[in-house]
């Protein structure tokens, strides 16, 4: 399949020392590889490893040029290109199959495949109104759609509406769209199998191989490592914006790839672990589903012990953020949640708060803070609303006054304890830096005095120094007050440094719960949705099974 041995051939695509900086933050550095006609390149890496940025550069997305362009060169068939829009990339023969489906729900498969490339027929009105008034040639459109579908080797009903297609058919329709574009030389597939059933994924892999034999090159991005190893000719592993390894499937294994992806210096993590005694269960979740856009939870069951710090990890979009949002009533949810032995009625945020639970949301600026209000109001707000704290009752509670003195006192206390950098307790929240805003959010949750505290993405978008402090604060509250903390984070190392146990969420379900002291690779494999049996050592080290 590979033309690599033919040294005379020019590579279809050459990526030469490509790098990218976002506002002084380097996300991609010195990436080099080349891809020949008919070759399939597997690109793997954690979220934030730089895959998307690399593809955005390749595809000429405006976000790249708006943030100062990129370093290095990209060559197509030996010629340097610098795309200013995705349409330039399409003209150069690059096709992209997106992670999110971009099918029109009311269009048939045929119409979707030929979107904006419809076959048309002349009519006299064209002379007056121009080409767009040409009528569609339905018969020819159908012929072209059938042709593209037959190349794929998967039967889709060409007349099925986008909205009514099964997931797999949608994915094939998307790919058929790129095949119909005769100029497509390079196909970028971003997680094409993520939503497919296993049998469908197999067919997809087979038809991709067929396409490669027709001379179409591919960049295949996937978290399903088995597929990458089965399909690709070359595998590139990205970590923190660098290529950590370029290898061939025959020379590697899933375990090696997984550990290269997540593998940081494991010793650097604080290894000081507390011995959790078997305490009672404080939160029990059975068959929870949450309809949170982009973070759908499908069927999640777990329980958390009293006094524990419980981590929830997983890749973006798999549903980990949905769990806390669902239990706190912020998104439509269902299932059985038991708090301190009593069932919790879902979909009612006030009720969830009144059951001694508090939530530090991942959306700090949207949900977490009243941006235009001062620090003391922000800190006191939830407690005031839910628990009637900071309220002076007059005439036996007929009139309620805000107790400014008490608010000031508690705000100053937390500003001091959490080292919130501000000009005073009356400074508006919007003026604070990200890390200090996060501390205000935490203080707001602490004031409620929760028995169960949900903290989502506590360190997102804040600098390293502040990160450590935020994590230490969470730990300290847990130790001082005995509150149970459930931390949701995309950063595995962060979870491993603060939690007692970690649950990994994949495709809206929990793929495993492990002690935080287990090796990072084990969590990496769980995140990628591979069967745990692929982890060689894990099964024999012993420990809890769930």
């Amino acid at each position: 399949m590979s033309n690599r041995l033919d040294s005379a051939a020019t590579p279809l695509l050459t990526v030469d020392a490509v790098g990218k900086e976002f506002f002084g933050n380097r996300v991609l550095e010195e990436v080099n590889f080349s891809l020949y006609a008919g070759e399939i390149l597997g690109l793997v890496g954690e979220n934030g490893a730089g895959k998307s940025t690399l593809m955005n550069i390749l595809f000429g997305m405006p976000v790249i040029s708006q943030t100062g362009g990129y370093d290095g060169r990209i060559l197509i068939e030996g010629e340097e290109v610098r795309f200013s829009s995705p349409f330039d990339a399409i003209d150069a023969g690059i096709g992209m199959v997106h992670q999110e489906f971009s099918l029109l729900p009311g269009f048939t498969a045929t119409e979707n495949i030929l979107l904006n490339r419809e076959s048309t027929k002349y009519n006299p009105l064209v002379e007056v109104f121009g080409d767009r008034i040409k009528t569609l040639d339905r018969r020819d459109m159908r012929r072209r759609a059938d042709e593209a579908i037959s190349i794929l080797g998967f039967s889709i009903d060409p007349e099925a509406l986008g909205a009514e297609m099964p997931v797999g058919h949608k994915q094939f329709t998307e790919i058929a769209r790129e095949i119909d574009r005769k100029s497509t030389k390079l196909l970028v597939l971003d997680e094409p199998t993520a939503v497919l059933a296993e049998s469908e994924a197999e067919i997809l892999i087979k038809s991709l191989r067929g396409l490669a034999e027709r001379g179409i090159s591919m960049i295949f991005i996937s978290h399903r490592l088995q597929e990458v190893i089965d399909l690709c000719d070359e595998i590139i592993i990205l970590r923190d914006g660098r290529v950590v390894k370029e290898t061939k499937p025959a020379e590697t294994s899933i375990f090696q790839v997984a550990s290269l992806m997540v593998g940081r210096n494991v010793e650097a993590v604080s290894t000081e672990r507390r011995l959790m005694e078997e305490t009672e269960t404080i939160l029990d979740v059975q068959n929870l589903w949450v309809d949170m856009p982009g973070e759908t939870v499908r069927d999640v069951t777990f329980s958390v012990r009293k006094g524990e710090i419980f981590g929830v990890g997983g890749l973006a979009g798999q549903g980990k953020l949905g769990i806390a949002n669902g239990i706190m009533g912020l998104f439509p949810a269902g299932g059985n949640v038991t708090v301190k032995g009593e069932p919790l009625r879902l979909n009612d945020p006030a009720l969830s708060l009144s059951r001694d639970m508090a939530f530090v949301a991942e959306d700090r600026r949207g949900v977490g803070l009243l941006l235009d209000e001062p620090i003391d109001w922000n800190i006191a707000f939830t407690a005031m609303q839910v628990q009637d704290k900071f309220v002076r009752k007059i005439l036996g509670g007929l009139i309620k006054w805000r107790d400014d003195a008490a608010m000031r006192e508690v705000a100053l206390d937390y500003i001091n304890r959490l080292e919130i950098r501000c000009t005073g307790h009356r400074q508006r929240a919007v003026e604070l830096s990200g890390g200090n805003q996060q501390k205000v959010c935490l203080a707001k949750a602490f004031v409620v005095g929760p028995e169960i505290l949900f903290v989502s993405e506590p360190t997102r978008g804040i600098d390293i120094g502040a990160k450590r402090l935020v994590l230490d604060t969470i730990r300290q509250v847990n130790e001082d007050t005995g509150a149970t903390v459930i931390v949701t984070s995309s950063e595995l190392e962060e979870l491993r440094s603060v939690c007692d146990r970690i649950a990994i969420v994949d495709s809206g379900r929990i793929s495993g719960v492990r002690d935080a002291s287990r090796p990072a690779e084990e969590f990496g494999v769980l995140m990628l949705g591979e069967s745990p049996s692929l982890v060689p050592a894990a099964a024999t080290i012993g420990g809890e099974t769930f």
Partner: protein
Amino acid sequence: MTPPVKNDSAVHKFTGTENVKHFLISNSVPIIFIALSAIAIPISGFSAGYLIQEMLTRLARNSFLVLSLLIPIMAGMGLNFGMVLGAMAGQIGLIFVTDWAVVGIPGMVLAALISMPIAAFLGFICGSVLNKAKGREMVTSYILGFFINGIYQFVVLYTMGIRGLHIPITNPQLVLSRGFGIRNAINLTGIRRALDNALPLTHNFGHFTISIPLGTYVTIAAFCFFIVWFRRTKLGQDMRAIGQDMAVAGSAGIAVERTRVIAIVISTVLAAFGQIIFLQNIGTMNTYNSHEQTGMFSIAALLIGGATVSRASITNVFVGVTLFHMMFVVSPTAGKELIGQAQLGEYFRVFVSYGIIAVALVLHAWKRLQERERARRGLRGE
């Protein structure tokens, strides 16, 4: 990697009762109005012949205006309240042909030709503004209607006349006695029923005689064919694509904003023609009022026909015009027979036309919620 919530619903099979319920929910508005008519018609005591004649006249009078709303809905821009811009353009055309005393079909054609560039220009302004207000097209075009109405009044009231500033209108029957400004009531004798009677057709059924405005119906039929044909053009296909998802259409290389402007321009020009057809049937024109209710009544009629802000068909137009005007004709008399007060019926008529727009918008939101709920059932695995 977004979990495909919607897709599961496609796999989920719905039972018979669920489908019946779904049918009733999606057609709730016309069903309510058919029921209301069924109650009101016998109470009003009108003869069948009278009602049929009224409906035939009113269908001819209003259908063209309502049909002009279809194309923006197809392009996902909702109900085009901006059609009053077209109505104003049509009225300006009529003022000129009345002044020049061009009569009959040639007068109507000339009025249409004069109104076309004005409507196209206003449509372009409207479309450009709506591109700045994506997702809030309806309220924006509604308010834009008020704004352009101000300009229309300025033009007609101050710049037209014998001693007018720029635009000469010399017929003293049109101009206010002060020498400039158009009178409020204009008699359109020259073109009254010109199109309706172009192809005269009357039929005697023994008890009653029915006259059918065939010329207008032929025009409306031609318009319907145009819409059906237009849907099959590349431009129509692009509008359907944009109507479903602007981002997807844009990423496929369709010029989204330009296409949306074209949709509004077409709608506005057709509304101008529609207003000319409407007024030739009425025979008189209220310079300062005729256009004001055009948008409201056309939209109410379309919604009563079962259309939503995102989906409307030619059938919706005819069903809607018939049901809406049925209520218009029978409810005052039914009110009088029932309570002894015609005013109550009149009140009901106004209540209905404004209320139905509110109800239809609420129902639309409620239906979307129901559909999301339906989709969510797949998620729960029920």
